[in-house]
């Protein structure tokens, strides 16, 4: 008999809320485009050494029937599986074309899909179906309080907590939904406490998992 592992209720609730919004119009992408970005993020996996990802500069910016141009589809793959290869110059070349807020929203959709999909996969559970796309135009609003704080894109100038809290804050509501996933899946309200006593794993065990994953992703941060 298969042993089924159930996500905890709070993680499930926060995941449901994030998933429901993926198909709705965002700040810069329409619902159908957001679902297509989610699908591309889901499909992305690290390429073997002999199969190099195409150069983004050489890909068509024209749509050929799908919701995303080959360039945007490849960008989603790059963000999902090789984000450590994105230099400041790369990101600025991308944002010069599609806009910094559209880039942040794309990356923020990827972070939500990756969190939820990898959680299900790690537990051996089925991935949830992608949401249906809803009609409507992107609202084009830009969050307030942003500044150049030394990253590749503008982000919230004043924050409490670690820098990752403001990383994709340019994506507004999408970033906030992802931060709720971070809250539910990782630290809760205990980020600053080095001893966790109300969990199945100790803080050092959690941090070993975290650090090992970050090393595999070659993430310096």
């Amino acid at each position, binding site marked *: 008999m298969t*042993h089924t*592992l*159930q*996500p*905890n209720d709070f993680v499930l609730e926060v995941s449901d809320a994030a998933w429901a919004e993926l198909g709705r119009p965002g700040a810069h992408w329409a619902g159908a485009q957001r679902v297509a970005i989610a699908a591309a993020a889901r499909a992305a996996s690290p390429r*073997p*050494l002999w199969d190099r990802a195409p150069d983004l500069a050489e890909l068509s910016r024209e749509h050929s029937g799908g919701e995303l141009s080959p360039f945007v589809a490849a960008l989603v793959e790059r963000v999902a599986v090789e*984000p*450590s290869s*994105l230099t*400041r110059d790369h*990101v600025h070349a991308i944002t010069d074309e599609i806009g910094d807020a559209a880039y942040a929203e794309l*990356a923020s959709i*990827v*972070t*939500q899909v*990756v*969190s*939820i*999909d*990898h*959680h299900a*996969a*790690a*537990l*051996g559970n089925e991935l949830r179906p992608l949401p249906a796309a809803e009609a409507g135009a992107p609202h084009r609003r830009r969050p307030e309080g942003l500044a150049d704080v*030394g*990253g590749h*894109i503008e982000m919230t100038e004043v924050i409490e907590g670690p*820098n*990752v809290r403001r*990383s994709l804050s340019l994506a507004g509501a999408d970033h906030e939904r*992802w931060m709720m*996933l971070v809250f539910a*899946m*990782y630290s809760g309200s205990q980020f600053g406490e*080095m*001893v966790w006593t109300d969990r*199945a*794993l*100790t*803080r*050092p*065990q*959690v*941090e*070993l*998992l*975290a*650090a*090992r*994953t*970050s*090393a*595999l*992703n*070659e*993430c*310096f*941060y």
Partner: protein
Amino acid sequence: MLLGLSSNAVDVEADLAAVTGNVVTSDVVTSDVDAGVPHAELLSAFAEAAWRRDESLPPARAALLAAVGDEAVVEAAQTVAIFRSLNIAADSSGIPLDESWRGLAAEFVSDLGLDQFPTSANTPGY
């Protein structure tokens, strides 16, 4: 860094080399170092298998489950999943290391080879 701080808080001497282990940039990734925390080997194997999402995942999950139980495996799955996305958020946005962590980071970055990661360029001098 938080591995070191949280281990110190419970009087455990964590071997931070377990974080990088024998990491290479191909699809062959291993870690054979005991981190000094309970079930470190099983946790590390689970993190690697969950990262690869290949045939190594079911046995790694089963081994961890046998050692720590359902609730802990669910927490482990949450952690590896959310950190995969935290890395994406950090690297795609180019955030530098937090000021308050730079002094601590300097102590072990070069020892562990973390300065070889391309994104170390986002934190010049750390």
